């Protein structure tokens, strides 16, 4: 109870610590959540309706991949294949927007984009994601050097797509000078074999169809995709640095505040209170403070992550996902640093003669 009293009576100091911890925790939550969100959105795009992905051999990014679309004709003849479609993924200025995602796809995949308005596009036509559509008030839109007729609006639940344009794959092929960025294959659930075995067999068979293709299950593709690794690693470095700085800040503030309370510890020692009593109260103060600031930061971060996809200017591209592991890791680190930051100076102070602590507090 003394811990609670100390926190509530020293409101300014408590608020300072609370704010520092909140900002530090929010920094790591938002940085890591947004990067996890980017990976999550792209993974969802690839994994939906696809068990196998076919890209150009040896390329580092699907943006640079060029696969012969005619491979689809051979793929659909293989026993165990349910369907196959091709996509071109690119980016280009769209209307007044400096950049937006362009998704060219075959007709059999158009139904993936649920129309909220209008009809699916033919050649020379496009449909717009709901976020992008809210910013374009016209029947036509200029994409790159060409003008397209807008025939409808769609929603897919994927932020990247909601902020982009879907068009016929031939139009996209002309725009980006390629046949297809990748081909996706859905497998059947055949009797007498498991789905996973069927997919593995299909990967082997499709690989033999063309020397210039690389065939992977979408699961292993997402796991090994270089762009995801770059995003993950860079976000890990940035968020770790932000968090480390935040944690050092927390430890410093806790340490400064404990140092400013030397007089109080000296008085308590003079009154016969043991070092353990003082340390225990500081421990609870740190625990209460760091845990409540953590909870506050968690709630605010979740609120921000909920709002981000709905901000028109961001076109739905910034979409955060906060994992349980990240939340737990941040909780443990925050509490440890806050407790260390307060207990170390308190431990050092507890070894000093009480009257010296009282006099230091006065100076």
């Amino acid at each position: 109870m003394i811990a609670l009293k100390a926190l509530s009576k020293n409101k300014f100091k408590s608020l300072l610590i609370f704010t520092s911890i909140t900002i530090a925790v929010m920094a790591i939550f938002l940085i890591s959540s947004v990067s996890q969100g980017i990976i999550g959105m792209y993974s969802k795009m690839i994994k939906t309706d696809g068990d196998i992905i076919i890209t150009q051999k040896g390329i580092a990014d699907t943006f640079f991949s060029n696969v012969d679309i005619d491979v689809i004709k051979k793929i659909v003849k293989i026993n165990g294949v349910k369907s196959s479609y091709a996509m071109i993924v690119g980016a280009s200025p769209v209307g007044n927007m400096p950049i937006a995602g362009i998704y060219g796809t075959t007709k059999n995949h158009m139904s993936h984009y649920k129309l909220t308005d209008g009809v699916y596009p033919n050649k020379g036509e496009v449909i717009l994601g709901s976020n992008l559509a809210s910013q374009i008030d016209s029947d036509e839109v200029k994409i790159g050097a060409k003008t397209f007729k807008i025939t409808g609006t769609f929603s897919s639940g994927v932020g990247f797509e909601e902020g982009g344009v879907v068009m016929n794959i031939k139009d996209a092929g002309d725009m980006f000078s390629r046949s297809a960025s990748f081909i996706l294959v859905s497998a059947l659930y055949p009797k007498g074999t498991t789905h996973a075995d069927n997919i593995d067999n299909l990967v082997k068979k499709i690989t033999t169809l063309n020397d210039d293709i690389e065939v992977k299950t979408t699961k292993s593709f997402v796991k090994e995709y270089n762009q995801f690794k770059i995003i993950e690693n860079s976000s890990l470095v940035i968020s770790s640095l932000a968090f480390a700085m935040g944690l050092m800040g927390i430890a410093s503030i806790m340490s400064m505040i404990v140092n400013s309370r030397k007089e109080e510890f000296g008085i308590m020692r003079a009154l016969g209170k043991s070092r353990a009593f003082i340390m225990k109260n500081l421990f609870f103060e740190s625990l209460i403070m760091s845990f409540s600031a953590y909870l506050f930061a968690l709630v605010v971060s979740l609120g921000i992550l909920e709002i981000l996809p709905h901000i028109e200017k961001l076109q739905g591209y910034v979409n955060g996902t906060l994992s349980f592991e990240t939340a737990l890791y941040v909780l443990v680190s925050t509490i440890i640093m806050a407790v260390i930051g307060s207990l170390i100076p308190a431990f050092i102070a507890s070894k000093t003669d009480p009257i010296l602590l009282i006099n230091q507090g006065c100076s």
Partner: protein
Amino acid sequence: MIKVKDISHFYGDEQVLYDVSFEIKKGEFVFLSGSSGSGKSTLLSILSTLLKPSKGEFLLDSLHAVCPSGIEDIKNIDKFRQENVGFVFQFHYLINYLNVKENIALAALDSKKQNIDKILHDLGILDLASRYPNEISGGQRQRVAMARALINEPKIIFADEPTGSLDSKNSTIVYELLAKAVKKGTTVVVASHDMQVQNYATKTIRLLDGKLQ
């Protein structure tokens, strides 16, 4: 009660006490006098176990401290202090986030907590029980500090300039309370510039430049 033998103390290279030796008997009201810088506050801090002396030894009730490291060798010095020693400082040193009653409860042994209201009543500050230190006057704060020093009925009370920040009326109240404790058998040692202490003291120890006069 207190037996001091050849106590010396240094702050860095500066020596502030020189081989001080004396005895204080149980129930005495001792006036530790001397000018500013004479070493009386340092001596009081050493006797009350709040400061380890650089050299010498002393006997404080059952506590035998051989210096400089001796006090730390005695187990539970904190408990010894709580059970046997009361303190009154010039600036009261109440904990700002605890109210009057909680400040006294912080110092009180479990067996003495039921006496808090009585002691507040005896000192005329029962109505201040739920107030915080910044909500009461300097004289009232010092009375709270007195209540805190008396709550465990200690064998010895050390007071360092207890009236330094009080007017004469409140100073008299403090000395009367200390004198009352002496009548009950408590030993009181007061370090002060205030010559009014002489009216209550049964013994005076004078320090000049860290030496006994």
